[in-house]
């Protein structure tokens, strides 16, 4: 599979996760979000950027439980909870936000 962005073809797997992490840029995140009928706000970007930093450091896309805890630690309890994160990413904060962030699907996600 692939998506078209600004005349460029970007390879994805069958679930829409980027094949090459290096292909990612912010425009790609926006297009992926539009496909899910979401408009990315600064709150979305905060989570997306957090995930990219997390992946950079640990080479893994965190499970939702771990993401929630880690966000809480970094951004405070009003953001490190399921309700806040599911409101931002209704298809699952780890699953959907990782896709927007150009990361693989979190390990263990089905």
């Amino acid at each position: 599979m692939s998506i078209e962005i600004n005349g460029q073809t970007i390879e994805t797997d069958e679930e829409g996760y980027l094949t090459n992490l290096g292909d990612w840029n912010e425009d790609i995140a926006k297009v992926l979000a539009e496909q899910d009928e979401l408009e990315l706000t600064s709150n979305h970007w905060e989570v997306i950027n957090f995930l990219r930093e997390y992946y950079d450091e640990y080479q893994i896309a965190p499970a939702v439980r771990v993401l929630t805890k880690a966000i809480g630690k970094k951004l405070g309890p009003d953001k490190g909870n399921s309700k806040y994160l599911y409101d931002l990413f209704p298809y699952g904060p780890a699953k959907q936000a990782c896709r927007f962030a150009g990361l693989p699907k979190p390990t263990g996600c089905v």
Partner: protein
Amino acid sequence: MSDEDMMDDEAGGGVVKKFLYVNRKAPYGTIYALESLEVVLIGAAFDQDVSLAFIDDGVYQLTKGQQTDGIGMKNFSPTYRALEMYDVEKLYVDQDSLTARGLNAEDLIVPVEVLNTTQMAELMETQDVVFSF
């Protein structure tokens, strides 16, 4: 409801078992090390009592400064540092295996407990489930 509560409900307040993952192979060249790590990460969602043991060439999985560009593989060793966030905190390494390879605990990417052969045998003895990779 917090995540923790949801996890408890899913587990049905079930029995917590002691799981030991034994890692004996070098990190690259076979898929064992990466597969073991993925099973540990996936299994972490079930809130069991998890330990990891590194024996023989398995100790190389934890060495600092892994450089994988030449073999076209992802260096997944930083992921061992994420285990703590998955509440997997008991990592044991076999003393003889380290010594035979000229390594010590300071050469490893995460804090570990080094065990001698007797202690390792005792650790295995106390487990409910042992997975060997």
